[in-house]
């Protein structure tokens, strides 16, 4: 699955933070494919949890890019969310049924 092959995943047991409750499990659509996520978590975190690190491809070189700062500064995680382009996925919380698209794939 190319850009979706890589690990990451969710933290299981944790000695300090006994469990990550998070929001309820919902489905979002990433490039049209259903992906299970937790309501309220940043979209970028949901993507990483599913093993997907690529958020966009550099315009001129086509190189893959992914979340870098996770606090809304670097813009590497920008994707098209519900038709709105250039949304920082590290800042936008997951909502049920959300459509998240890789920029090139959504244009045209």
């Amino acid at each position: 699955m190319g850009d979706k092959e890589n690990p990451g995943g969710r933290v299981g047991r944790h000695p300090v933070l006994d469990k990550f409750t998070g929001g309820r499990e919902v489905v979002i659509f990433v490039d049209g494919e259903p992906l299970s996520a937790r309501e309220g978590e940043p979209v970028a975190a949901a993507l990483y949890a599913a093993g997907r690190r690529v958020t966009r491809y550099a315009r001129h070189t086509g190189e893959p890019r992914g979340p870098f700062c996770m606090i809304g500064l670097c813009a590497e995680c920008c994707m098209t969310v519900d038709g709105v382009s250039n949304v920082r996925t590290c800042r936008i919380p997951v909502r049920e049924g959300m459509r998240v698209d890789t920029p090139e794939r959504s244009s045209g």
Partner: protein
Amino acid sequence: MSLPLEEREMAVVGCGPAGLCAAITAAKTGADVVVLDENDRAGGQLIKQIHRFFGSRRHGAGKRGYEIAGELERESEAAGVEMRLGNTVLGLFPGGEMMVEDRDGVYVLRARAVVVATGASEKGLAFPGWTLPGVMGAGAAQTLVNLHGVLPGRRVLMVGAGNVGLIVSYQLLQAGAEVVGILDVSERVGGYEVHRLRVQREGVPFYLGHRVVQARGRYGVEEVSVEEVGGASRKVFRADAVCLAVGLSPLAELAAMCGCRMVYSRELGGFMPWHDGDMRTDQPGVYVAGDAAGVEEASVAMEEGRMAGLSAAEDLGAMGRKEAERAKDEVRRFLWELRGGPYGEAKRRAKESVHCA
């Protein structure tokens, strides 16, 4: 088009340790204080800190960062501070006018005193492949792991053996990731001994005097090659994440935007607004505190926040000069203590050169 305008006595931008302490201190003198932060939770970076802090009781020694954040939040509520989360300050203009964006749109807020406590951002490190997915700031990894319960990778290479690199490495281990190594171009570990021992006890190897040559992978990092500085020895790691813990820079564009003179200090992370020991900038009514005023530790940020809060309260007339001076003397004593030791002393000297710049 005219935007809705709100007038307040004092506004604090950023509700991390510095901003919260500034707000609490000023509100306790009777000032009307609103705190603005783009995040949905109060506490700034403290909410990602799951290790116990050391130092003095005044700075939360023995408590975990997120517990300190909770306490400061409760304290500010009790002091009557209005907390406005999810509010992004887009611009700060001379005269204390700021443009703020919330869920409903944009509004203008004018305050007679503005404290810029906007924190810091992580520095990057350029090497071939550093733009590959999987290469990220150590703080970004910390955000993923401790806030969202998501691993940045299963096999992580940490670049930088300062406190951030050591602490985040240990937290990645706690979350179940493997740290394949901690690399630093320096020959010595920059972070505290207690943090170094923790990761070393877990068997994490250190590669001191090493640098990253290249990260490779198709859709993200798959392997990283490193080499000894000036030496022949090379090593290739299989890794799916590279965390960069190579320092922080003050994040103070808002201060620069409203005309504050900016000064540079390598020791304190880069450019920051010029300020005096009372955290006043050269713009009347604009104060700065915490990492935005030069990167140091959370305890220093708290004291600088208190100092900024006192100066603002004094300038607003909520506090008499004598009373303010007495309270400031106490803060000065704590700051002096916090900047003790060889590490703190370098910071103190850097800070003094900023005051004189």
